[in-house]
């Protein structure tokens, strides 16, 4: 039987391999990769949404945003780099820089909370204060992994 696209019999045996090649992950354009990384940082899961991975997008949004909101509701606080006292060579208090780095990974969750004043007044006397901080660190750090995953998908390294 003649193949529908007009391939002759001696070429047709290789035809089966082409369907496998179509199934391979393919890289997205550079602008789409950059956009996926930026939106993935701003909104957890949005990078996967932009790349058509809807199931994972919903999963990441619910878990990471949920962890951040849970942290806020447990009296966790938002960290900002503070100047070291007494003055040191690094200028900033290193531990607050690390805490800030962990929390800012959650993107708009952090920025919006900071803008409207949630978590900006610490309550270290609250029994759940440290639990809250731990969940907010977790949210930001996991989102860094999710951003990396979105980049890998956009670069065609994984499905």
């Amino acid at each position, binding site marked *: 039987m003649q193949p529908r696209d007009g391939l002759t019999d001696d070429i047709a045996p290789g035809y089966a391999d082409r369907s496998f090649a179509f199934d391979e992950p393919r890289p997205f354009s550079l602008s789409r990769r950059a956009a996926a990384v930026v939106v993935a940082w701003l909104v957890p899961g949005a990078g996967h949404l932009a790349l058509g991975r809807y199931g994972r997008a919903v*999963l990441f949004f619910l878990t*990471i945003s949920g962890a951040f909101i849970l942290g806020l509701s447990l009296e966790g606080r938002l960290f900002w780099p503070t100047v070291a006292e007494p003055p040191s060579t690094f200028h900033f208090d290193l531990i607050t820089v690390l805490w800030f780095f962990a929390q800012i990974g959650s993107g708009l969750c952090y920025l919006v909370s900071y803008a409207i004043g949630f978590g900006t007044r610490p309550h270290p006397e609250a029994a759940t204060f440290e639990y809250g901080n*731990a969940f907010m660190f977790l949210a930001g750090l996991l989102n860094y992994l999710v951003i990396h995953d979105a980049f890998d998908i956009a670069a065609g390294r994984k499905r």
Partner: protein
Amino acid sequence: MHVLMMSLYAAIAAVVLAAVDPKSDTTRQRLIHGLKIFGSFLGIGLLLSWVLFPIPW
């Protein structure tokens, strides 16, 4: 309270870590990987608490 928080923390971490695992191709593999991570978090947490409990400082 502490065990509940630890379990929630482990569950959230396990879900995300299993979903981004590059070696798991199927949902079943991701599920097994996630359960291993969840169990490891809880197991190591309980083991550490048991080891650290007698230390007075």
